[in-house]
């Protein structure tokens, strides 16, 4: 059973084709990583998937889909007089979720209750990103879409965040779609990879789809990346 089926997806922004001819099927409870150089349309693709952008082609989510979305960059000022509790409370009220669900979401992302009293400007990058994921978990989504969740976070923080995301995928049988620049994360966690490049796209399990030739084509230069086999 597929969580998501995409057929010949195209998005035009400002008269230019930002995303063109993207097709893939994603099975339920699997993890898809979207990779590609800057400007390849990764964020645009993600936004089209959640229905925030008009598009050509077909996007079909499974009928029981509930989406949780973690955007890449928030267009807000960090000195807003909003604390973590304001964030969660607002989303919980909209999603109709209980206090228990809020605590559960916090536990799932490993964020202490005390942090909620902090204004968002005083949170560390890692705390804020966890808060956003907890925010996305309210409303009990079965699909989580994350746009470069580890961007701007130090290396240990990134590793923890990746564990959190994939812990969620395992424990809640969630389908995860994430944009990532980190190829080691892609090889380690993703069941499928979708690469967007200026000359075309590729899709498949990382080990078969991400050939050196394909990486060269997507990024326009050799990456010199070594595949560590963890299995």
């Amino acid at each position, binding site marked *: 059973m597929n969580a998501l089926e995409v057929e010949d997806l195209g998005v035009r922004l400002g008269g230019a084709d930002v995303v063109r001819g993207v097709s893939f099927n994603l099975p339920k409870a699997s993890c898809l990583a979207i990779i590609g150089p800057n400007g390849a349309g990764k964020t645009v693709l993600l936004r089209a998937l959640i229905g*925030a952008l008009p598009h050509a082609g077909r996007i079909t989510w499974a009928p029981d889909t509930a989406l949780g979305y973690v955007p890449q960059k928030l267009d807000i000022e960090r*000195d*807003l007089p909003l604390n973590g509790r304001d964030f969660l409370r*607002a989303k919980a009220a*909209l999603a109709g979720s209980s206090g228990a669900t809020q605590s559960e979401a916090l536990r799932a992302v490993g964020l202490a209750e005390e942090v909620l009293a902090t204004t968002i400007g005083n949170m560390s990058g890692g705390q804020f990103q966890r808060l956003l994921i907890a925010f996305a978990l309210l409303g009990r989504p079965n699909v989580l879409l994350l746009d470069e969740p580890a961007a701007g976070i130090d290396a240990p923080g990134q590793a923890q965040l990746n564990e959190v995301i994939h812990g969620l995928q395992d424990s809640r049988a969630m389908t995860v779609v994430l944009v990532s620049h980190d190829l080691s994360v892609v090889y380690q966690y993703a069941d499928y990879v979708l690469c967007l490049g200026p000359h075309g796209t590729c899709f498949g399990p990382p080990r078969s789809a991400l050939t050196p030739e394909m990486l060269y084509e997507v990024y326009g230069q050799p990456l010199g990346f070594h595949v560590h086999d963890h299995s």
Partner: protein
Amino acid sequence: MSTITPELGSVALSAVMAVAAGLIGSFAVMRRMVLAADPISHIALPGIGIALILRINPLWGALALLLLGAVLIWAVERRARIATEAVIGVTFAVALAVGSIITSGDELIDALLGAPATLTLREGILGIVGSLVVIGFVLRQRNALVVRLISPEIAMTAAVDVARLDLYFLMAFALTIGIGLRFLGVLLMGSLIIIPASIARRFARSLGAMLVLSASTAVLSTAAGTYVASLAGRPSGPFIVMVAGSLFFLSLLHRRDA
């Protein structure tokens, strides 16, 4: 039309009007609409002028054009993000120019600076009902407004109709300006929405604190400004803004650690 006592009518109306301004201002400031507030209020002037020519209550003319202005900004923002500021700036400057040509003499001064002493009963009731509508909107929609503020995309995944919410917000903003025109006039009403919220933002550490501080600062500024104006026998608008402005400069002494 009967004229109710300025004191009684003004106190009741100015209190709810100030609360509405403080609440809508909180979200306006967080949404970076600080600079948009003034131009939007200027579009009321041609409305007042047209209403005077048609011999209907100026308040209706002002409200009609303010709501039209809200829809205009909403439509422009949805189409192109780039030129929004320029379009708003130019449109509303032209509105002010046109309005000052078709309005003249004492009426122009009243429209620009406010004239609460001439408040009629019907205007008072309209103002109170309008203020309650704005207050109700902000309090009921605060969760959707917060999520929308954080990210429109997240709001969409939480089943919020973002376009409609934005339109309602702008209309509530325009309504607040319309209600306050009697007190502060076209030139200064924007500041009663923006200044108290800007002060509150310097101190608040949570949404609740922001809303309470902003509303109470607006009420305090309006009450103190109206009182001083009555002692001086002058229109209240400039005094209200002077009080709010002084509080803002005082608030700068408080250093935010965030």
